[in-house]
């Protein structure tokens, strides 16, 4: 019986010290049948033979190609037994097989020695060859799942724990596969794992997910390492709770023995909420009013007011444009502009998210009349649209599965092409893309022909959702309608959670799942109960972005200070403090316009346009390029870089445009200088305008000293103050 063959491990071992491999039973005699899939392939994967840099890569290595990570048993069987003129295995003299001589480095091997001659692995392969190199042992069970023990654990700093991986087969048998499983930590400084599954907690607080892979199955062990000093539960009970978000955040922090930072100040909250919700900085007037207000509910009143502004729609539309907008040089200017209008209009209408996605995914009509169809003008094949839709709306990154089984997930090529098949029958009329002009009109409709073939088997794929059911029947006129229903169904947890996670990440500056569109068992959320609750709230509010933003902004967790306390400096993913972020390029440029008082102008846009209203990244702007906007030339184009760079510092410091705007005779600086305002008033105006706060006493004195000095050039002093403030992190960052 294959399951009880030579690699069974002693069940008694649970905690090992050091990095010695767990003890292994001596290889038993060669009578036990070795199964290719259950026994031999795991060895190839475990010792790296099938990995991407070695024989698993698309061209193989040294003429020997295996399927990546051993997901294609038939392919690997052929490669081993038949290709290379059969010299890889040699039945007459099994020990002389290349399959054995290479990995133990008896002959030159580019990959070096992978295991020892005489090791259990060696004997396993040897036995398989001796037994006749069968493709399958009769009645060999098939692998159903693997489990890891423990599935979750709490460790102290520097503590170690041996994980056990168990394979479960369809005949009810199980087998310890720890020695053959691959282990990987997603946060190795917090909890590292060695190749034998020994977890070692580091010296810092936090949590990590240990991924275990065996054959095509995965399991995850969640490891939590709390701070050594416990915190009395009463301290958590005493924390304020504005809504359900706080319950979940505090619960997680309690597990980690971390207390959150204090509530942020009103001035910090004002700038944070205004930049997050509306993508602009507060005006001096707003600062004065908000700080003077005595209303106990003034923070939530502010949130309510901001959510009604047109800037809210433009700011969030701008974010989605990043993700959806194609390159106008590819699909045509008019198509992209219409697409932008279509998206923007829906954000201004506060359209429920499910409706938005339904209209987009099943869009029909002309690129000149319905901007949404530009999605299909750009992504012209079912696999291109399928990849985009699954990643954007359910957070499933299928692109790996286009060419090979997803290395960290269950997705296979069947899943990929089955999903793509929903887009197989899109009908087209008119003129397709003809870069770089692509100016013509194109129509999209529910076509009657078209299919997707599996690239390996050649089979025509039936449309199949990634999970659940979404059946295309004879009555279905457009399979995309079925897909749209499936995507936006209230039962589709991923649909609401992906959006909730994106919005959460935008406001909290770190997604519960990171990257925000990479949802999978092996990339667990840092706080799954919170993600569940946010998703449910979003769905129950009628898929309302406004409500999602509101509930987050009103939570106590959102309103925490960014300053660390004695507990939480180390926390970068559990929201025990607000994480700072650099403002987006458009927000910074609009802020500069507000501060200088000199309107920016953008090519082919009317006067008064703000940066976040620009409909194409082809619009020339050194400022926006410098601070990073998606590059339509990149694939994919949607990524934005939140980093600071030296080029940004240089631009703020020396840009001729910024300089001349500050010095312009119509600038705010000039107007302030000409006014008869006192130095105190001017200081207040400047600090409110740039930092959205009132100057403190020492700052008032500093400004007064400069402005009231004998022979002071008021205009120059104000310009210099503005320059100095623009070059500080307090302007560039959201605190």
């Amino acid at each position, binding site marked *: 019986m294959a399951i009880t063959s030579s690699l069974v491990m002693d069940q008694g071992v649970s905690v090992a010290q050091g990095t010695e491999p767990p003890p292994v039973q001596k290889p038993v005699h060669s009578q036990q049948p070795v199964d290719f899939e259950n026994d031999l392939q795991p060895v190839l994967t475990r010792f790296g033979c099938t*990995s*991407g*840099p070695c024989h698993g890569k698309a061209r193989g290595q040294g003429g020997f190609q295996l399927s990546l990570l051993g997901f294609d048993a038939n392919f690997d069987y052929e490669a081993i037994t038949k290709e290379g003129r059969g010299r890889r295995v040699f039945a007459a003299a099994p020990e002389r097989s290349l399959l054995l001589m290479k990995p133990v480095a008896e002959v030159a091997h580019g990959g070096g020695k992978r295991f020892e001659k005489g090791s259990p692995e060696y004997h396993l392969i040897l036995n398989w060859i001796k037994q006749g190199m069968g493709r399958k042992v009769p009645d060999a069970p098939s692998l159903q799942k693997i489990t890891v023990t423990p599935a979750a654990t709490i460790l102290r700093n520097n503590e170690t724990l041996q994980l056990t991986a168990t394979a479960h087969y369809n005949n009810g048998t199980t087998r310890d596969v720890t020695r053959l499983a691959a282990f*990987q930590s*997603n*946060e*190795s400084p917090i909890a590292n794992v060695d190749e034998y599954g020994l977890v070692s907690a580091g010296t810092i607080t936090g949590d990590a*997910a240990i991924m275990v892979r065996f054959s095509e199955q995965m399991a995850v062990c969640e490891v939590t390492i709390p701070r050594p000093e416990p915190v009395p539960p009463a301290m958590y009970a005493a924390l304020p709770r504005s809504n359900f978000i706080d319950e979940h955040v505090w619960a997680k922090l309690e597990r980690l023995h971390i207390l959150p930072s204090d509530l942020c100040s009103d001035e910090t909250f004002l700038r944070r909420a205004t930049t997050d919700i509306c993508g602009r900085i507060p005006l001096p007037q707003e600062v004065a009013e908000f700080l003077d207000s005595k209303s106990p509910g003034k923070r939530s009143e502010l949130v309510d007011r901001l959510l009604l502004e047109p800037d809210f729609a433009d700011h969030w539309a701008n974010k989605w444009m990043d993700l959806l907008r194609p390159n106008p*040089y*590819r699909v045509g200017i008019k198509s992209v502009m219409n697409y932008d209008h279509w998206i923007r209009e829906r954000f201004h209408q506060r359209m429920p998210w499910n409706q938005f996605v339904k209209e987009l995914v099943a869009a029909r009509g002309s690129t000149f009349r319905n901007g949404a169809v530009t999605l299909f003008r750009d992504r012209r094949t079912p696999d291109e649209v399928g990849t985009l839709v699954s990643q954007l709306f359910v957070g499933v*990154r299928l692109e790996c599965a286009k060419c090979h089984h997803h290395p*960290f997930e269950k997705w296979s090529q069947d899943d990929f092409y089955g999903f793509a098949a929903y887009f197989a029958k899109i009908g087209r009329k008119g003129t397709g893309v003809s*870069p*770089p002009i692509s100016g013509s009109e194109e129509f999209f409709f529910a076509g009657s022909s078209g299919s997707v073939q599996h690239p390996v088997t050649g089979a025509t794929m039936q449309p199949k959702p990634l999970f659940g059911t979404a059946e295309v029947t004879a009555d279905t006129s457009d399979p995309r309608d079925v897909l749209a229903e499936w995507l936006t169904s209230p039962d589709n947890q991923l649909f609401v959670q992906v959006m909730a996670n994106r919005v959460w990440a935008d406001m909290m500056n770190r*997604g519960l799942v*990171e990257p925000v569109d*990479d949802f999978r068992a092996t*990339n667990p959320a840092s706080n799954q109960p919170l993600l569940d609750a946010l998703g449910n709230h979003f769905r129950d509010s009628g898929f309302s972005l406004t409500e999602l933003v509101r509930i987050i902004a009103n939570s106590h967790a959102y309103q925490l200070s960014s300053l*660390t306390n004695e507990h939480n*400096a*180390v926390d*970068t993913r559990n929201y025990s403090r607000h994480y*700072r*972020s*650099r403002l987006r390029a458009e927000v910074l440029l609009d802020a500069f316009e507000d501060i200088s008082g000199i309107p920016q102008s953008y090519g082919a846009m009317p006067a008064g346009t703000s940066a976040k209203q620009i409909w194409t990244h*082809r619009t020339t702007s*050194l400022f926006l390029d*410098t601070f*990073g906007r998606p*590059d339509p*030339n*990149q*694939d994919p184009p949607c*990524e934005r*870089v*939140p*980093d*600071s760079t*030296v*080029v*940004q*510092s*240089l631009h703020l*410091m*020396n*840009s*001729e445009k910024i300089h*001349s705007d500050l010095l312009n005779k119509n600038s705010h600086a000039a107007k302030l200088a000409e006014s008869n305002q006192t130095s105190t008033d001017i200081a207040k105006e400047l600090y409110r305008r740039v930092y959205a706060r009132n100057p*403190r006493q020492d700052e008032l004195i500093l400004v007064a000293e400069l402005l009231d000095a004998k022979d002071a050039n008021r205009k*120059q002093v104000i310009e*210099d*103050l503005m320059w*100095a*403030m623009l*070059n*500080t*992190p*307090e302007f560039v*960052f959201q*605190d």
Partner: protein
Amino acid sequence: MARQRNCEGTTRRDCLQFGIGALLGTGLVDSLRVLGDSKNTGGPKATAKRCILIWMDGGPSHFETFDPKPDAPTEFRGEFSPINTAVPGTLFSEHMVKLAASLDDFAMIRSIRHNQGNHGAGNHYMMTGSPPRIPVGCGAFVSFHPSMGSVVAKELGNNNALPPYFSMPQMSRSGGPNFLGARYAPFVVADDPNKQSFKVRDVALPKDLATTRFDQRTDLRSKIDKMVRLNDEAAADPVAAFDQYFEQGYNLVTSPEAQAAFNINQESDATRDRYGRDSFGQRCLLARRLVEGGVPFVTVYDGGWDHHQNIFPTLRKRLPEWDNSVAALIQDLKERGLLDSTLVVALGEFGRTPKISTLSGQKTPGRDHWANAMSVLMAGGGTPGGTVVGATDRKGFSAVDRVLSPENFVSTIYHKLGIDPGKVLYTPQGRPAHLVSDATPIRELV
């Protein structure tokens, strides 16, 4: 500046390009990156410390430059005659006068060929060593893999105030960092060093701002800057990076050495004349100043080599200037003792069709895209002078002797700079990517 146009009529605004990547620290990615970084050691021994890449965008004709075919029929041969070079038996086309005379100082590769016959794809293949993953259009500017310049910026860095990767006057089509992240994007010098008013944007003070006022401003800034920094490194305060970059920018602005690198006016008239008083010549000179200042990779982007029509009159005017500038760069580096450690490379994305033709709608003949043959110039950094690697056939159709790939070419550059072309990089998604999939350098040149 004059914008260069390719056949499909696109122009490229001058800008900084940013790649994907630099996502927030995600665990799996981090660990893979660390894994990738840990493989950094043990690269080949460097014979070059820096590289100047002259990028002839559009694809120069190999016939009219370095690979004339005097024995081919007229409709292949073209209007130019061959001339002898310093290497007996090797011919250049008639306008490559100075380079022909100094072939002892550099090498030619005549046998690189690939299969990407449009600008977008050809650019990507030659600039990154990686073919585009999906078919791309002719006018495309695509990036699926980090460019040579970005990789060198990451691997070699720069230990003074200057950024490690420059591109002038624009980034080449596929010259970006892709998944390496924005830090390794080229610093673009858009302005024309041949102009009296030349200055590099943002690295010097605005023109009417006095230095004393700048000093007052920075002094004022330090008084105004009150944002509390999170000193614990574990807190990963992004403001820390901002502070570093401000300081680096400030050093660049105030460093006489860094400013001197940009100050082309410090060159004598004789030197400036020698390089040629045009934008390209002066960019070559500026490139030399930058590598002298410690910059490891400079791209001199030279557009407009897409001669579908009017090829002979155009090249008759252009080639002598080009020949002069490139020869001057090589000789100047040699005289300064820098050629041994400085690699100079000149090429475009492909060669051009052997048969001269007049496209419909055009009145004058030209040559079209042709990736089966091209000529690549390589000088310095341990490149044996006078070497001619490979050959094309009698009519210039195809590389036939010692056929080489873009991978071999890019591997050669990395190898010379001490970077292992076979190393495995990891994308932010954790996908392993070979730096170059075939890491075999051109043995005649290393």
